[in-house]
Structures are given as structure tokens and as C-alpha cells.
């Protein structure tokens, strides 16, 4: 064995400790980088390659860096992604309910309940003074403002539906862009691994994108042997290696289109027909995505979703109020002998939008027995409760559903938080630990340098001082 082997051993150690220090430095640099996974240098002793000789046995002659490991946890990552996908879906649903709830303005003096009560009690004033034109004018004014506020409320729900529909389309674009970025990283990671270049940072970047993708559309991540991953949504690939398959949101883009859609035709919905749904852009088949914000938004756009449900409540309210008031108002002829409806529903429009006050002249208002100052009809109308009960029920349903949706979203977010903290607990950088490592590798580096000096002095003794005895 060479006398200089120890020098080389010290050199390998210096080299290895330096690389390890660099890795620690990289960890410390990225302590706040989102998605960064801490790295650790794996060291391995170099086994002795020489044959036993007269002067000694075979022994190791140094250390080498085998790899820079990424201390990730694929299971924790998968768990976080699946929790993120369900939490995002529930959050999207809860957000829609909350949005709808703020447009209802109940309980309070500005809601529809107040408008309904005002309308019906003004019939009592007319019943008290059937000959009083002021009371009748007030009644017609209150009726017009009730009709307007029903239509406004309907339009608010419709506007929120349309905004959500546009948001869903925008998120589908976002999903496609992210999928392309993941496929691109897949290709780069594969190339890096083939050429033996470390790809840890690329994998971290891809992890961040995958979590974002899970929040948008859910999906399942499958790792392949060449380092690339596939993202499967509803059993089909969104990303396969460096290939992507685009998604799109098909279906009607207006609430009216949804309510008049009817049942599925034999040859399926067209891309602008039927309820909004997430499909594969190439085939038009539904993806069957069950998680992510996009699935949540598509849920809220459905016929039984919050917006369509509320719009149906407004329609039912308009129909009920028109039916019950008209039934009484037209039960007797007016003062001019003509039987009239109080409300009319414009054909070709939703009841909530088509509701109109048919009586525009106070002389055409039927208050009771014609030819007399009598208010039996007005009094009867003032006691109608069908519309008011209907609206009360709709508000309660809205409140209960919103509360349930928000609670589910909160619970899911809590679970997601736990999954995230588990992943962070495993992968994030701990500064104390890195500081200890820093000291450890620094000491090792110093010690290796000392070995070098010692061997150097030893050789000095051998080379420069041997054979000079007595000189």
C-alpha cells in the first residue's frame, strides 16, 4: 500500500465534507421555499482495494459521496394531494352557498319577506277604505316594488350562476396549462435521470404543481420507473409522461339553458347544451372527476345546485303569489263589471322575471262586491299566507344548506391542514438540525485537514529527516 494513500483518503474526506456542507447550505437557503424537500448527502466508506501485504492488512482508504438524497415521503405527498382535492371541492361548494346567502338579505328589513308582508298588509288598508284612492295607489306601488324585488333577486342568483360558469371555464384552462407544465417537468426529470444529473429541485417543482393540480381538479398520481409520473382523472390520464390530454367545460352557459334543458338526448348533449360538466376536450366524454375546485364548481352549477335551486324558489314564489292573489281578485267582477287578474305572467319568461302587476289603474282594482264600498276581497287577499310560507321555507333551507356546506368545508380544511403539517414535518428544513449538521461537517472537514497535516509531517520525517543522523 502506498505511503501516500492516507493523503488521498484525507483528500476524499475533505471533498465529501465540502459537498455535505454545500447540501446543508442548499437546505438553509431553501428553508422558506414552498415545496422544497430537504436533501441529505449519503456517504460511503471506500473499501480497501489492495491485497494484504507484509506491512499491513487491506483497509479502507477514504470516503465518497454516493448520492444526494431527497428526503421526500411519497405517501404523505399523496395523502396531502387527496385531502387538498376534497377540501378544494367542498370549499368551492361552500363558497357558492355563502355568496348566494349574502344576496338574500334575510333576516332583516331589506329582504323579500318584508316586501311580501308590506304588500299583503297594504291590502288591509284598502279593505278598510275601499273608496280611498291613496290606499289603492300605495297598494299598487307596493305590488310593483315586490315584483321588481322578486325579479332582482332572481337576476342576482342568475348572475352568480353565470359568474360561476365562467370561473369553471377559466379553471379548466388553468388545469390544462398546469398539466402541460407537469408534462414538461416529467420530460426534464427523465432526461436528467438518464444522464445521472440530480433532479431533486425539478421533482420539488413538480410536487408543487401536482398539489396545485389536485386543488384544481383532483386526480391520482402514479409514479413510473423512469422518474416520470402520470396524473389520472376519473381513471383516464390527464398527464402521461410528457403527453397531456386537455379538459374542457361543456354545457350551457346560461341559467335559462339549464332549466329548459330537459333530459339527455339519445346522441348525448352538444358542447353548448345540457348541464355544465367537465369533459375531455378531444372526445367530449365526461371525466368523472370527483375532487378539486372544478368539480365543486360543476356541482354548484347543477340543476340541484344552490343557484338553480334558489332561482326555482323565486319562480315558485312568483307563481304562488300570482295564483293565490288572482284566484281571489278575479272571484268577483270589478266596479265596471269586468273580471280581472291582479298579476299576470308574461309568456316566454321565467315566472320570477315575467311576473307583472296587471292592474295599472286604481279604478280597475277589485276590492269587494261591485257597486259598494266593500273590502271583502281585499281583506281575503291580505290573509293569504301561501307565498309568505313558501319564502320562509326557502330561506330556512338556504340557511341549513349553507351551514352544512360551510361546516363540511371547514372539517375538510382541517384534515388537509393535518396532512400538510405531516408532510412538512417530514420534508421541511429544520434550522437547528441544519446548524448541527453544519458544525458536524465543519468539524469533520477540520479533522480531515488535520489528518492531511499529520500525514504530511509524517512524510516530512521520512523524506527530509531520514538519513541525516549525526549530520
Amino acid at each position, binding site marked *: 500500500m502506498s505511503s501516500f494513500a492516507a493523503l488521498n483518503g484525507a483528500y476524499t474526506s475533505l471533498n465529501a465534507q465540502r459537498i455535505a456542507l454545500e447540501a446543508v447550505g442548499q437546505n438553509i437557503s431553501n*428553508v*422558506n421555499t414552498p415545496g422544497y424537500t430537504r436533501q441529505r448527502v449519503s456517504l460511503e466508506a471506500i473499501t480497501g482495494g489492495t491485497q494484504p501485504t507484509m506491512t499491513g492488512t487491506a483497509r479502507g482508504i477514504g470516503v465518497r459521496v454516493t448520492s444526494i438524497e431527497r428526503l421526500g415521503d411519497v405517501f404523505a405527498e399523496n395523502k396531502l394531494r387527496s385531502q387538498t382535492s376534497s377540501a378544494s371541492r367542498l370549499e368551492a361548494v361552500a363558497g357558492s*352557498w*355563502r355568496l348566494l*346567502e*349574502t344576496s*338574500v338579505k*334575510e*333576516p332583516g*328589513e331589506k329582504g323579500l*319577506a*318584508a316586501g311580501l*308582508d*308590506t304588500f299583503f*298588509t297594504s291590502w*288591509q*288598508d284598502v*279593505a*278598510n*277604505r275601499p*273608496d*280611498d284612492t291613496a290606499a289603492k295607489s300605495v297598494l299598487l306601488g307596493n305590488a310593483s316594488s315586490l315584483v321588481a324585488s322578486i325579479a332582482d333577486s332572481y337576476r342576482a342568483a342568475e348572475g352568480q350562476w353565470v359568474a360561476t360558469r365562467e370561473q369553471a371555464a377559466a379553471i379548466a384552462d388553468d388545469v390544462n396549462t398546469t398539466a402541460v407544465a407537469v408534462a414538461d417537468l416529467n420530460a426534464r426529470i427523465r432526461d436528467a435521470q438518464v444522464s445521472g444529473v440530480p433532479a431533486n429541485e425539478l421533482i420539488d417543482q413538480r410536487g408543487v404543481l401536482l398539489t396545485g393540480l389536485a386543488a384544481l381538479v383532483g386526480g391520482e398520481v402514479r409514479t413510473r420507473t423512469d422518474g416520470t409520473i402520470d396524473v389520472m382523472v376519473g381513471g383516464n390520464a390527464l398527464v402521461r409522461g410528457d403527453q397531456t390530454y386537455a379538459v374542457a367545460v361543456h354545457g350551457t352557459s346560461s341559467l335559462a339553458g339549464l332549466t329548459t334543458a330537459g333530459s339527455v338526448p339519445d346522441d348525448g348533449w352538444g358542447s353548448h347544451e345540457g348541464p355544465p360538466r367537465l369533459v375531455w376536450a378531444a372526445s367530449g366524454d365526461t371525466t368523472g372527476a370527483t375532487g378539486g375546485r372544478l368539480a365543486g364548481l360543476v356541482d354548484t352549477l347543477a340543476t340541484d345546485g344552490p343557484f338553480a335551486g334558489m332561482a326555482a324558489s323565486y319562480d315558485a314564489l312568483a307563481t304562488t303569489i300570482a295564483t293565490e292573489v288572482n284566484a281571489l281578485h278575479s272571484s268577483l267582477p270589478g266596479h265596471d263589471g269586468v273580471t280581472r287578474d291582479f298579476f299576470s305572467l308574461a309568456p316566454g319568461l321565467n315566472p320570477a322575471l315575467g311576473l307583472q302587476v296587471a292592474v295599472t289603474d286604481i279604478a280597475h282594482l277589485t276590492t*269587494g*262586491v261591485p*257597486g*259598494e*264600498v*266593500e273590502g271583502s276581497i281585499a*281583506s281575503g287577499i*291580505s290573509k293569504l299566507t301561501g307565498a*309568505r310560507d313558501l319564502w*320562509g321555507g326557502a*330561506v*330556512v333551507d*338556504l*340557511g*341549513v344548506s*349553507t*351551514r352544512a356546506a*360551510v361546516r363540511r368545508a371547514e372539517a375538510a380544511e382541517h384534515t388537509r*391542514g393535518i396532512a*400538510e*403539517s*405531516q408532510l*412538512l*414535518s*417530514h420534508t*421541511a*428544513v*429544520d*434550522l*437547528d438540525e441544519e*446548524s*448541527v449538521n453544519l*458544525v458536524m461537517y465543519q468539524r469533520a472537514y477540520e479533522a480531515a485537514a488535520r489528518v492531511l497535516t499529520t500525514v504530511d509531517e509524517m512524510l516530512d520525517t521520512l523524506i527530509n529527516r531520514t538519513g541525516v543522523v549525526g549530520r
Partner: protein
Amino acid sequence: MIGRVTQQGLQRASLVQLQENISRMAQLQERLTTGKVVLRPSDDPAATVDAMRLRADQRATAQYSRNAADGDAWLTTVDGALGDALTSLRRARDLTVQGANTGSQGPSSRAAIADELRATADSLLEVANTTYLGRSVFAGTSTQPAYTTTAAGTVTYTGRTGAEVLRQVSDTTSVRVDSAGSDVFGVDVVDANGELVRDASGEAVGMSVFSLLREVAAKVEAGDEDVSRFLGDLDSRLNAMLGEVGSVGTRHKQVLQAQDTIAARQITLTNQVSSVEDADLAQTIVDLQIQEVSYQAALGATSRVLQPSLLDFLR
């Protein structure tokens, strides 16, 4: 490797906890500034229903209050009119008794009695056509005055029997606020020409109080020996009026009681709405204080936990 605590994990956890803390603060602050516990249906769906129902009750009660005030005015008018009518009718009865003493009266004094009787009839007719806000209180739901005089000097009652003017004073009670003129003042039985229908002895078969007084006046003027035979008719008319005064008084009392009940109910409802919707100020302020303390504690703890690391101690 659960239990490994990292800087990033600590930061996230601190942020989440601070966020929760401050969102609770915001909620309490919203309660304090609005003074309401239930701001959205989802805050408390059951309380929302209660609040909506109570508000509907409040509006209905306000309407009942207006109805009762209107009913009160109607009944006061009717009551006053009946009082005037009674005074006039009593005077007419005195005059009739006076006119019956034929022996002691000359033609001129009989004529004076007859004139006063006719004047009383006119004033009674005016009372019978008393209006409140343009509507005749004795004519039911008719748009016309209660009594109109015909060319023949008789009267026609325009009110429709059975058509009552009602005021709703509670969910279940309506009170009649008019008075049927035909019951109080009577109706004339007339032929096609508007003349009173008379039997074989020349007596009218049915007369209103107005025609009765005119008939008495005519008989007194003519020196009829037996004017006192009309006293029975006058007394029955007086009794009818007294009965109506009693009935109006009872209904008036009912309306006044309803007004009291409504006033009490309005206060109760206001309290109930407030107890369902409004925030308990004292409790909310205390809650907010506690929340503030815990938020400050969380901030303090976070600042201490995030600061130190081993780097502070390595030299």
C-alpha cells in the same frame, strides 16, 4: 416521522392559529358593530325562521293597530250620532205628549208643536246621514247617504242589510264598526209613488222615525183627538236606539280592549325579535375582551417561538 418540528411547519401552524383567532375577533366585532347575532340565515337557521315569523307578526300587528284606530273612530262617530238621535227623539216624545193634550191647546200652539216636531225629524235625518271620512256610518257598505228623501216626503234607506263594515283587530277577531240604519231609524213601507201604504183605517203600516214624526206633526196640527196612540211607536223606536247604543258600546269596548292588547303585543314582539336577533352587548364585549387577550397571547407566543434557533447560540 411525526413529531419532527420544522421552521416551516411552525410558521404554518402559527399562521393558521392566528388566522383562526383573528377571524373569531372579526366575528365578535361584527356582532358588536351591527348589534345582531343572526346576520345570515346560516348563522342560525332556526333563529332566522323565528325572526322572520316575528317580523311578519310585527307588521301584522301594526296593521291591526291601524285597523283598530280606524274602528275606534267609526264607533265614536256612531256613538255620538246615536246620542244626538236619542236626545232629539226624547224631545219629540215630550212634544207628542204635549200635543196629545188637545183640550188645553189652541190651533197656534198646536202649529208650533207640529213645526218643532218637523224640525226634529229633519235633524234626525241629518244625524242618520252622519259620515266619517265621506262614508255614511249608518249605510253599511253603500256608497250613498243612508237616507234620501223622496218627492212624496217619505225616505228611502239605501243601505244593504247584512253588509257589515268590519275591522280586523287580531288574527281571529273582526269587529263590526258601523250601525245598521234600518234597525235604528226604521224604514218606510211605501207604494210605487213613494206614498206611505195605509190600512183600511188610514193608519200607515210601517214608518221610519222621520215619517213617524211628520205623521204626528200632521195629526197634532189637524187636532187629532188620539195623538197618544203614536207614543207606543215612539217608545219602540227609542228602545231600538237604546239597544243599538248598548251594542255599539259593547263593540267600542271590544275595539279599545283590542287596542290595549295590540299595544302590549307590539312591546312583546319587539322584545322577542330583539332576544332572537340582537347580540347580548355585555356578553359580546366580554367575549371580545377574552378573544383580544388570547389573540395577543397568540401573537406573543408566535413571536417568541419563531425567533430563536440554534444559530443564535453558535459562535
